[in-house]
């Protein structure tokens, strides 16, 4: 039984989780979706946001190379282009397990390189056409 303890501890450190909430709420909010739009839209171009930096001591991310920072940087790009949102967004980012981060903290003189990239198509929804369905209506079967 005792021989299982260390493998379990190490395995529990193998999963890393990242999440980001969409930037704003209110009447002028934008949308970011990994889907295509069902209704009509006008394409306003492609956009790619890349943020690069290093993780200091395995955990500190002063350059902001996580999902939240990338989504926050995408927000002004959408508004500047006059778009309503981004469709078919794709995310690619470096992720380190807790174990790797601990190693990064021990060997702090080798900071971990970190990068996040978001790509997508800027679109404006056409007036008079149905709005995009980015999530199912409340109560609808999935």
């Amino acid at each position: 039984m005792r021989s299982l303890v260390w493998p379990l501890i190490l395995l529990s450190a193998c999963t890393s989780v990242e999440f980001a909430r969409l930037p704003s709420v209110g009447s002028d909010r934008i949308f970011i979706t990994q889907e295509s739009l069902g209704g009509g839209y006008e394409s306003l171009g492609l956009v790619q946001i890349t943020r690069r930096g290093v993780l200091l001591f395995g955990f500190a991310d002063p350059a902001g190379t996580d999902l939240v920072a990338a989504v926050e940087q995408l927000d002004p790009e959408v508004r500047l282009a006059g778009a309503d949102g981004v469709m078919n967004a794709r995310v690619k980012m470096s992720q380190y397990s807790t174990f790797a981060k601990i190693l990064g903290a021990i060997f702090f003189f080798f900071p971990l390189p970190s990068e996040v990239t978001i790509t997508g198509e800027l679109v404006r929804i056409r007036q008079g056409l149905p709005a995009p369905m980015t999530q199912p209506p409340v109560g609808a079967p999935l």
Partner: protein
Amino acid sequence: MRLISLTLALAVTGCNATVHGSRLSNVPIDTGGIFLSTGGAPKPFRSIGFVQVRGYGVEIAGMADVGNSYLDGTIRGSLAAEAARMGGQGVINIEFEDENPSTDLERAQRAMGSFSNLLSGRGPETKDRYVTVTGEVIQFLE
């Protein structure tokens, strides 16, 4: 000490790059030519194949890009041309990535390095640049 200072400077500076591409096709379709979209097709279609293009270019002295490492050149040029050659009327589900965009800081460093090189009789600094684009080539049934 110098190593730690350099690491801190690198981490805090952060490196952000934003890449833009021009408009793709609108939905409903309102122009001629090859239909291009990061999403699906607006009409019934049949798939005739897949295409991937990796554009290559060189950034010189952090200021000038030569070659085919622009999103626009790769999508509207090579990708659309290849689709037309296959007999397609459109490319859907386009995915793109500028693999190594330079940040403003990197461009400035390369420009300064090139200036220094030129003063000592050497050539400017260069960086290989790559853009990868994939998509599904289709023919409309209507």
